[in-house]
């Protein structure tokens, strides 16, 4: 497929589910903009290990600073925000989500819909899988001078959630987190309401898993990375445990099942991709500042991503986890423990290997982002291990989350093309002389 003459790749056409999600988000930001007038309390928190059902059960409104940062990246605002933060003394070496958020605050705190974001009444520091979260909310506390409540989620170095870990989280929830939220909400937590919301989560989670697993079909009806970041929007943010989320995922699943029936691929910047030349597994977050350009590098080559790890940072539902209304706090604890970046490197490698095999991938690619040591430290070993275990070639590219200075378009495109050419060469070799499984060369 020929390259496009335009400088920036166009955004793909929107499916009905995507339009619905846009309306949901607009409605949420409307609520946020009216929160002070409506007497609603606002809680800032993070995506991995979020306790959305708990917040909704107490009628609190969540704000996710990571989502604001990535949307600033997509709206080409992040470069300016980062510059603001660096002018204020923040190091060029550290997480650009943090600097984008700080810069956004210093620039008036205008959210993705153009409305001013309300200041937090409380910072719910769910310390899950990312050390930077801890410093991020210390910085926000400095900016807002508001209370913080900490939930320390133990790490799973061996991929095992032990009873002691679960108990530690539940005790924090019971003794510190819930009392702080109740104080803010001005009412006691209704556990029946929490359970009701967890039951709603479960329904949406079932539908999301069906969407992920649809990518085992050929052609894949979804792109599990570039398209996948839209699919995770509601369930990773403010809507898990709501009827809105159920409606969205039911609609999304129906669209995907219809595409399977018709043998269609997903919508991409290059139109619908029914013909799929390469099936990939991707590790690492995407770049947000040039998101459509990045996607276009793959879609123009008919490369579809059938599974990705970034879309599991907010929950590993496809590995069997579901929220359990019969054990609400234990279930929230298990959810926090199981987020992808809370798993030790050996478990991450096992999961990627499983994806490569189960999704019948031709190759896997790591997008290593400068900003995120939680993801990035160790990725070169992941690359070697996956190649060694599966014989499937790996590719490695570097960019950043929301710092446009670290998206070298020509360099990245060059690497992606070399990687895909290597997959071609391997396919040709396998047709001519079926190759034994073994170590592959990466680019």
């Amino acid at each position, binding site marked *: 497929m020929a390259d496009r003459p335009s400088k920036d790749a166009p955004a793909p056409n929107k499916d009905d589910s995507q339009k619905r999600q846009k309306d949901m988000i607009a409605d949420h930001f409307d609520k946020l903009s009216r929160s002070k007038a409506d007497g609603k309390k606002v809680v800032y928190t993070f995506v991995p290990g979020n306790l959305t059902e708990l917040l909704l059960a107490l009628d609190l409104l969540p704000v996710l600073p990571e989502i604001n940062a990535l949307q600033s990246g997509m709206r080409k605002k992040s470069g300016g925000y980062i510059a603001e933060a660096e002018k204020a003394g923040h190091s060029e070496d550290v997480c650009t989500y*943090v600097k984008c958020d700080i810069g956004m605050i210093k620039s008036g705190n205008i959210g993705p819909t153009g409305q001013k974001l309300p200041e937090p009444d409380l910072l719910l520091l769910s*310390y899950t899988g990312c*050390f*930077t979260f801890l410093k991020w909310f210390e*910085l926000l506390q400095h900016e807002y001078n508001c209370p913080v409540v900490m939930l320390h989620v133990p790490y799973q170095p061996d991929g095992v959630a032990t009873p002691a870990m679960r108990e530690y989280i539940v005790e924090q929830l019971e003794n510190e987190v819930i009392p702080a939220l109740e104080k803010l909400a001005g009412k006691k937590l209704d556990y029946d309401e929490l359970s009701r919301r967890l039951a709603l989560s479960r329904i949406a989670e079932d539908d999301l898993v069906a969407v992920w697993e649809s990518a085992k079909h050929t052609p894949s009806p979804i792109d599990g990375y570039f398209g996948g970041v839209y699919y995770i929007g509601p369930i990773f943010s403010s809507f898990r445990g709501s009827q809105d989320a159920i409606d969205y995922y039911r609609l999304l699943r129906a669209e995907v099942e219809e595409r399977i029936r018709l043998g269609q691929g997903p919508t991409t910047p290059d139109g619908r991709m029914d013909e799929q030349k390469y099936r990939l597994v991707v590790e690492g977050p995407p770049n947000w500042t040039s998101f459509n350009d990045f996607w276009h590098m793959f879609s123009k080559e008919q490369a579809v991503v059938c599974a990705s790890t970034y879309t599991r940072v907010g929950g590993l539902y496809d590995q069997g986890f579901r929220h359990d209304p019969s054990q609400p706090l234990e279930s929230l604890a298990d959810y926090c423990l199981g987020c992808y970046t809370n798993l030790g490197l050996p478990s991450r490698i096992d999961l990627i290997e499983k994806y490569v095999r189960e999704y019948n991938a031709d190759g896997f690619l790591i997008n290593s982002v400068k900003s995120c040591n939680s993801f990035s430290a*160790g990725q*070169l070993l992941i690359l070697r291990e996956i190649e060694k275990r599966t014989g499937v070639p790996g590719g490695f590219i570097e960019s950043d989350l929301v710092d446009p200075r670290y998206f070298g378009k020509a360099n990245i495109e060059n690497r992606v093309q070399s990687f895909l050419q290597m997959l071609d060469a391997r396919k040709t070799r396998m047709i001519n002389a079926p190759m034994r499984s073994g170590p592959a060369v990466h680019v």
Partner: protein
Amino acid sequence: MSSSDFVSQVAPIKAADPCGALLQRCRTLVEDHELNHVKQWKAANPGAFVMGHMPIYAPRALVEAQGGLAVAVFGGGEEVDIIRGDSYFQSYICHIPRSTIELGLGGQLDVLDGMMFPSICDVIRNLGGMWKILFPNKYSAYVDLPQNFAQGIGGKFYAHELGRIAEEMHKFGAQKLEPEKLRQAMRDENLRRAAIGKLDELRRTEPHRCLASEAYLLVRAGGGLLAKEHAAMIEEFVLAAKKRDTRPRDNVRVVLVGAFCEQAPVDLIRALEKAGCDIVDDDFQLGMRMIEGDLDAEAEDPLLALAMGFIKKGAAVASRYIADEVKGKSLIDKVKASKADGVIFAAASFCDPALLDQPMLEVAMDEAKIPHTSFKYAENTGQFQVIREQAGAFSDAVKLWGQVE
């Protein structure tokens, strides 16, 4: 055989300085990247367990209580050429994990039966996972230090963590943990802490008798010694330093912060001293001074007491959540206690905890009208001229205009 006998056999003695021989022994220990002194200790203590650990803080008393030796691993510093380590890490990740991998793959850490990776940042955490893959026959422990500081919640969790690690070390060959042995190991840790306290006091009151670069060597040399031996070594130095024929210098007094994990080259510390700075307090190798007070070595439940030492007396380092305390208060207290004129923020490049903390601490310093400057380094930084000039300019400025209110 004691763990310090190795150096007494090889270190030359300088007669002029009463501390010279001891400092030379320390330097030899610090530069012993082959861990020969640990090998000799192990040979003299057959079957004993040797547990390496990464910065900042690890429960060393637990290892000693199980008949073992804890060995602090601070990477390869400036002396180790990185050949394989760089192929495991991207350019934007700090230096200590790559030099630690280099040492591991090069066999220099073979003497260690296990490694502890404390929960201080994502890089050290993930290095722990890499260790499990690269060295599958060695014990590798992630030490999940609690961020909840209530005894019944974080304390209970951490005591359980310590118990788990003790049992796992036992499975890999360490002695079974017994309460009285743990109490004794905690008493020994208290001795070490008291000795380091005397060293710090000497630096604060008479910095000309003990340079920061010397204190650095003394503390770091104990990274592979038993606590009691390390305490004796420091006590010996403090006594000898008081006999030194030295005079006070016309230097500014500074507190240095941010260098708690990846260590600065000793020559960089010397460059700061030559630029006119008496470093009267610092957070180099903070693990040895992490617990700010005695462990309760007579407690009925010593495991819980060890945990509570961290919970209630752990230093306010960047990797620890500062719950209700005002950010920067701990540093301001340090500046006041050491009668410092200013603060030098010295962080390793790409060190998330230090660099994310720094803007908040700088604001606190500004509000307290404490002069400060900052620079970054890597453990293998070889050129110090720019840093020396910067520190010199800072020192001059503080002398001319600076004043802590």
